[in-house]
């Protein structure tokens, strides 16, 4: 209520204003705050010495004087009290709800009439009427159906905060009941006027509040970046914010394109709205609109909800549209990336499958362990040895194998080596045999260079060793076979030798007594016999000795051979240059190597018909490991050389560069002998420059 100020007026001025009955003067008051001054004036005009109004503050419980007439200022303050001060007559009257007259009290040394007033009307207020509710505080207070309670002075229907005041009047001497009744009447009259004004002012205040709320809501709506549209039941736009105007309002600049865009947008929106209404509450759907200004297509997600009137009838629809262009673009990109990821995953999966296939077909057990040396992956062959990785094996053998393997792999994992090959003895349950595997391990590092996994391939070397054994045996067999061939050849040669010796000698003896006409025939006889002699000699050379293969110094063999051939070389004007370096002993058939050397030396001599130099060198070549190596013999001449075509065929039997003089068996035998010694025989030749033979014989450090 609008009467917060104290109004203290002089009685003189108040008296001059009084004209006509009090009712009319009260009706003249247009505002609630004008009521109390009129009332106090009327009371004094009735002949009462003093009057005052006290207002009740429901929140603080304070009862404070708000207006007074003819009351000395210093006395007014004494009347202030609280609603719970029950021994105070003012608070007591207020709580009882009924006026009362008091003789001299502690408040005042004259009798007092104290009258409480409350917000009360005879008719229901508009709100209660509209709500069809009987619970109107004003009516309840007026009817006094129950005791008025100060704490209930808020209307349960319209939430109006009511007022309460107390009128205090000092009574003159000998005040009659009739005077008190008149006093009560005029106070009640003033209260009726006050209540009516108060009601009007209340609604006015509510309207003001609503206007403010509407303005605030409007600001909120306008400031929203998303288009918000309020439509009626016919889909006509009632209200829209600026963000929505961008799409739906015909712009000031009337270009045809813009108008068309807006029309299209409105059509699309209308259609979307209709479909959403069919879907029901909180429907939402995607909507593509054209930005009338930028001309861009934008994707929105529209959410619609119905708005209802006070009577519960739908009066329209609120639609909020969320710009999801970027969102959808991101979404699309996300899907695209997802697809890419899926594809990459597929490739990885295929690779993995392929790898698995390879692993499964390696034929060797493969074990993958993590950084803590725990087995994480086993191929089927490894599972035979260690059990499957998922369950801990119950078989004692598998447990032992696993612990043996773990011991090995943990020492490797924590070593500095990146890879390692070590023998590892593991019992293979499948063949019921303990096998020495060749464990080859490697490390897989993570980004920080820490070991993340180790991979171990267990190679069963039994088969390999068997093959090696077989190879040695076969070589021995080959040598044996060669020796046997030699023996056979020698036997045949020996048998042929003597008759041939006789033939040869006989031909020699006939030399002088052949008639002229028979000379060509005689020459054929002579040369062919010599050829047979050479072949026989060659074949006899294959086998001269039944010696054993044993460690021999190749240098000694070279020296022995040269000792025999030196004279021949000197006679052929061949300068011999030897450089024999210290050699380890080679396990060879000395006589066979001697034959190889004499063959090559004599070939060299024959290649130098006009003399030349013969280089013979030996040296020891160390192998990759400590154990194995080679003994190399080089025999190089400065002779005529051999053509490229010839070098290719030179080791074939019955191929010779010496024409009639050669048997074509020498180099074939040389090659056979070197091969039987698991050696290598190489030839390099240049026409007119000379020929180099290189022999590599394997040696093993004992």
């Amino acid at each position, binding site marked *: 209520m609008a009467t917060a100020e104290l109004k203290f007026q002089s009685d003189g001025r108040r008296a001059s204003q009084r004209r006509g009955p009090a009712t009319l003067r009260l009706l003249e008051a247009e505002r609630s705050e004008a009521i109390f001054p009129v009332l106090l004036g009327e009371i004094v005009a009735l002949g009462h010495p003093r009057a005052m109004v006290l207002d009740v503050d429901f929140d603080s419980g304070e009862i404070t004087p708000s207006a007074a007439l003819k009351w000395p200022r210093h006395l007014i303050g004494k009347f202030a009290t609280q609603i719970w001060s029950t021994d105070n007559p003012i608070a007591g009257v207020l709580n009882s709800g009924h006026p009362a007259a008091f003789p001299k009290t502690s408040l005042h040394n004259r009798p007092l009439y104290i009258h409480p007033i409350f917000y009360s009307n005879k008719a229901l207020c508009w709100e209660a009427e509209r709500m069809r509710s009987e619970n109107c505080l004003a009516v309840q207070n007026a009817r006094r159906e129950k005791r008025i309670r100060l704490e209930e002075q808020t209307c349960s229907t319209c939430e109006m905060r009511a007022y309460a005041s107390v009128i205090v009047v000092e009574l003159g001497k000998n005040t009659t009941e009739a005077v008190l009744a008149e006093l009560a009447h005029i106070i009640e009259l003033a209260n009726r006027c006050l209540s009516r004004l108060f009601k009007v002012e209340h609604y006015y205040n509510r309207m003001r509040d609503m206007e403010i709320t509407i303005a605030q809501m409007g600001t909120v709506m306008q400031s929203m970046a998303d288009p918000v549209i309020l439509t009626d039941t016919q889909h006509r736009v009632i209200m829209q914010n600026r963000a929505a105007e961008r799409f739906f309002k015909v712009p000031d600049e009337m270009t045809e394109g813009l108008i068309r865009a807006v029309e299209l947008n409105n059509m699309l929106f209308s259609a979307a709205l209709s479909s959403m209404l069919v879907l029901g509450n909180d429907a939402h759907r995607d909507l593509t609109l054209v930005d009338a200004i930028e001309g861009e297509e934008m994707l929105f997600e529209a959410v619609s909800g119905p708005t209802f009137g006070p009577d519960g009838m739908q009066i329209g629809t609120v639609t909020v549209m969320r710009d999801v262009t970027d969102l959808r673009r991101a979404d699309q990109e996300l899907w695209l990336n997802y697809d890419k990821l899926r594809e990459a995953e597929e490739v990885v999966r295929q690779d993995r499958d392929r790898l698995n296939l390879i692993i499964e077909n390696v034929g060797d057990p493969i074990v993958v362990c993590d950084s803590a040396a725990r087995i994480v992956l086993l191929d089927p062959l490894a599972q035979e040895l260690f059990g499957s990785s998922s369950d801990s094996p119950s078989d004692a053998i598998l447990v032992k194998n696993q612990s043996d393997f773990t011991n090995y792999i943990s020492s490797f994992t924590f070593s500095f080596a990146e890879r390692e090959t070590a023998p590892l003895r593991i019992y293979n349950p499948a063949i019921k045999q303990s096998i020495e595997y060749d464990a080859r391990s490697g490390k897989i590092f993570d980004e920080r260079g820490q070991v993340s996994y180790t991979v171990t391939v267990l190679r069963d070397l039994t088969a390999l060793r068997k093959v090696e054994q077989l190879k040695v045996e076969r070589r021995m067999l080959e040598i044996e076979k060669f020796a046997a061939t030699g023996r056979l050849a020698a036997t045949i040669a020996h048998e042929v030798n003597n008759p041939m010796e006789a033939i040869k000698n006989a031909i*020699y003896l006939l030399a002088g007594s052949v008639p002229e006409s028979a000379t060509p025939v005689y020459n054929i006889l002579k040369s062919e016999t010599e050829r047979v*002699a050479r072949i*026989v000699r060659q074949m006899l050379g294959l086998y001269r000795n039944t010696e054993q293969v044993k460690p021999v110094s190749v240098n000694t063999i070279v020296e022995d051979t040269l000792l025999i051939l030196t004279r021949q070389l000197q006679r052929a004007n061949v300068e011999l240059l030897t450089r024999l370096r210290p050699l380890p002993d080679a396990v060879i058939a000395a006589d066979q190597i001697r034959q190889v050397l*004499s063959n090559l030396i004599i070939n060299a001599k024959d290649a130098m018909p006009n003399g030349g130099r013969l280089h013979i060198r030996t040296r020891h070549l160390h192998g990759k490991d400590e154990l194995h190596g080679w003994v190399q013999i080089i025999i190089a001449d400065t002779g005529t050389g051999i053509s490229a075509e010839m070098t290719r065929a030179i080791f074939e039997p019955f191929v010779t560069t010496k024409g009639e003089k050669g048997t074509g068996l020498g180099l074939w035998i040389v090659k056979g002998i070197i091969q039987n010694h698991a050696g290598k025989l190489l030839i390099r030749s240049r026409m007119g420059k000379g020929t180099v033979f290189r022999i590599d014989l394997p040696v093993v450090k004992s």
Partner: protein
Amino acid sequence: MNDNPKSRIMVVDDEASVLITYRLILEQQGYIVGAFSKSSDAIRALEEEKYDLVLCDYSLEEQHTGFEVITAARKRDAAIPAALLTGYATRDTADEAGGQKIVIMFKPIEIEEFLETTAKMLRREDESNEKSGQKSSGSQSSV
């Protein structure tokens, strides 16, 4: 070549045709040749006649060897030059021959080389007669 035409050479070979041709070739050179196909005949002949040179096949009739004949010849004349004619020789045979200063000639033998070696051996015998020191040449293996 034919420095000493009257040198007496003993040839032993169990193959008759070989023996005859050796004899004819050596006779052609002017040597006096005693040819025998059996070791026993040869050894007996050594007792009856003096030879300057013994050329002997290694393997003779039955299990006899040329060594037996040469040994017999050396009993009478320790310095007599001797050669084994053979198709092949084992290491042991070669070593044994080397040790006894016996020349080995591998069949088939080039006739020129055969005659040259024969002449040389006879010459050496002359030298050794004078100096009483002899040297054996290396075996002539031509492969």
